């Protein structure tokens, strides 16, 4: 099957007073249509930066932004900002931001904000767009009279759903969800995850779900990507990954997640994630790795393992 999203050697570096931060460092992957991929990793491993790099939401201190991104056959990196805005934003990719609580403009009515992409990209009339918004609100489970409310009049969960409705309103192919439930209580989290699952089938969507909540994400994931220090360390089918993680980092990560009906001692990873300003040479995880050996001083290759899994580790070379 033709990949919907193809990323090759994507790099996003930031300029800071202390030096250049290599937030996304040579990331390559493909994502087929109608699949949900979850990206997991510790805080600061570059998950959100990867999302922003794909969406071209570059901060003011961007230092390097290179690589190739193909979205639905379009070479996105060759587009100008204006072309990217017209052809990609909300046409092909939509986005649910990390802090969805603040993702709505406080002084504009929710309905009008959700309708905005339709006015911009579909050139709909306002009434028509608002009808479509009401439809979308019903799908994600927002009471339809919230169209006329201001964001501060909505609860956190409802605001989150409204933002999800906003991401769906133009029927884009790919939705990038950056920790869509991290600020919510557990019940609301489960509710929203279920809604996302249902919507995915209904709209035949492709998801990239960024999270550090491994347990919740297993509900949705078909593919899994593990990031460490700005790089992909493991990539494969979710089924394989959740049952038998291969990279030492993934193993430790999974060992830190509590499970029901299993008497296991929770594990943790010693040390701190490395600074992305001067990342260690060779394998970036080596200083914290319990399986390191002499080869780890060299940069590990991306190894093709069985079942189409990829692992960036010398152990599998």
């Amino acid at each position, binding site marked *: 099957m033709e990949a919907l999203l193809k990323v090759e050697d994507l790099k996003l570096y930031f300029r800071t007073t202390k030096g250049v931060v290599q937030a996304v460092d040579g990331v390559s992957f493909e994502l087929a249509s109608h699949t949900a991929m979850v990206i997991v990793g510790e805080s600061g491993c570059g998950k959100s930066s990867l999302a922003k790099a794909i969406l071209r*939401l570059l901060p003011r201190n961007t230092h390097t932004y290179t690589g190739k991104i193909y979205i639905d056959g379009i070479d996105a990196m060759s587009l100008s900002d204006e072309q990217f805005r017209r052809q990609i934003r909300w046409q092909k990719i939509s986005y649910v931001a990390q802090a969805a609580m603040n993702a709505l403009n406080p002084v*504009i009515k929710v309905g009008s904000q959700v309708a905005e992409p339709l006015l911009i990209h579909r050139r709909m009339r306002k009434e028509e767009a608002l009808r479509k918004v009401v439809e979308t609100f019903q799908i994600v489970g927002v009471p339809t009279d919230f169209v006329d409310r201001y964001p501060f009049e909505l609860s956190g969960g409802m605001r989150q759903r409204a933002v999800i409705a906003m991401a769906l309103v133009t029927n884009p192919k790919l939705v990038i969800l950056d920790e869509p439930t991290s600020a919510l209580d557990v019940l609301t989290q489960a509710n929203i995850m279920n809604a996302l699952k249902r919507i995915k089938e209904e709209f035949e969507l492709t998801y990239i779900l960024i999270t550090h909540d491994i347990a919740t994400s297993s509900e949705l994931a078909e593919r899994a990507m593990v990031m460490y220090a700005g790089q992909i360390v493991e990539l494969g089918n979710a089924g394989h990954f959740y049952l038998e993680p291969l990279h030492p980092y993934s193993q430790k990560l999974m060992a830190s997640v509590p499970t029901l009906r299993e008497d296991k001692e929770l594990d943790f990873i010693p040390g701190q994630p490395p600074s992305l300003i001067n990342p260690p040479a060779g394998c970036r995880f080596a200083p914290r790795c319990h399986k390191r050996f002499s080869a780890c001083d060299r940069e590990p290759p991306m190894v093709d393992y069985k079942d189409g899994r990829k692992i960036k580790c010398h152990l599998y070379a």
Partner: protein
Amino acid sequence: MARKGLQSLIRLARYTFMRAVAIFFALVVGIFLTIVIANMGGYVDKIKKAQVEESISMSVFTNPAYKNLTTEEKRELIDKLVALELERLGLDKPFIRLDRNFLRSRAFRYLIDALTLNFGFAEHIHSTSGSKRVWIIIKERLPYSVLLFTSANLIVFFTSIYVALVLSRRYGSIWDRLSVSLAPLSTAPPWFYGVILILIFAASLRLLPFGGFVSIPPPKSPFAYALSVILHMILPLSAWFISGIFASVYSWRTFFLIYSSEDYVEMARAKGVPGRELERRYILRPTLPPIITSLALMLISAWMGAIITESVFKWPGLGTLYMEAINSFDTPVIVGLTMIYAYLLGITVFVLDFVYALVDPRIKVGGGSAT
């Protein structure tokens, strides 16, 4: 529902009343301080008494009608006339009494007069029409200041908002860094740039007039008159602009930088909202309350004129009037000028509260928090 509506109406009315009382109280305190300071805490009385004595003794000694009186008799006459004149001027009563007779002191009477906009007559200054009524004097000067400084402030305000928006989009660019390093230029006051501009464009190049409002004699045709006024406005406007623009651009740029890193702005950018619309709906719209406040305060500041800048350019506005009044201890004029501005400021602050509630749905008049 109707009950709830009534309740919120009562709450609104109570809030409005309390707010008005608070602002009025602040105004009374401010204007009373102005009256005390303008009279130098009563010291102006001594100056005036000395002036009265001097002028009366001069007139008695030089008046041929009293030529035959002895020095002793002249002294007596002078004392009598001085006492009469002091009584007429009310200077026989103390300026201020900090006891239970406070209400009978002149300071209190001045306060009541000021609050009721009853400014009375100027001591020395008179209008070009010859009137000594403070109202007429102020009304005559007001249009000049309002014309010059409203235009100047509007130009500075809208230029700096526009430039700041552009700069906030290009954070870290050469233009942005230039604007940051130029900001200290605004520490020099407008009259400083005024003097330099006069030296260059009036004294050296002879391109523009040194000062004044219109050339003398004033041109007959309205078109030529307007043209002459505009020519006279160029230098003071430029001085005001140069002195104001750098700090204003810098502070608005920082303001917009802070608000353009809000999450909802990034979200709008991700949605593909075009640049202009993004600025209008996602940056300017949520920040309207502080922008409106700044604009409103800037506009009423035109009603104060600018004391030194007007003097440098011989602009016949309120600033020049202030200068004349302060130099000649003309307290009714000083108090009148201050009172008008104080009322304007009070009303503006009062009205702004309601404007905030209109432009920002999160703000409810009366503090009925919504979240």
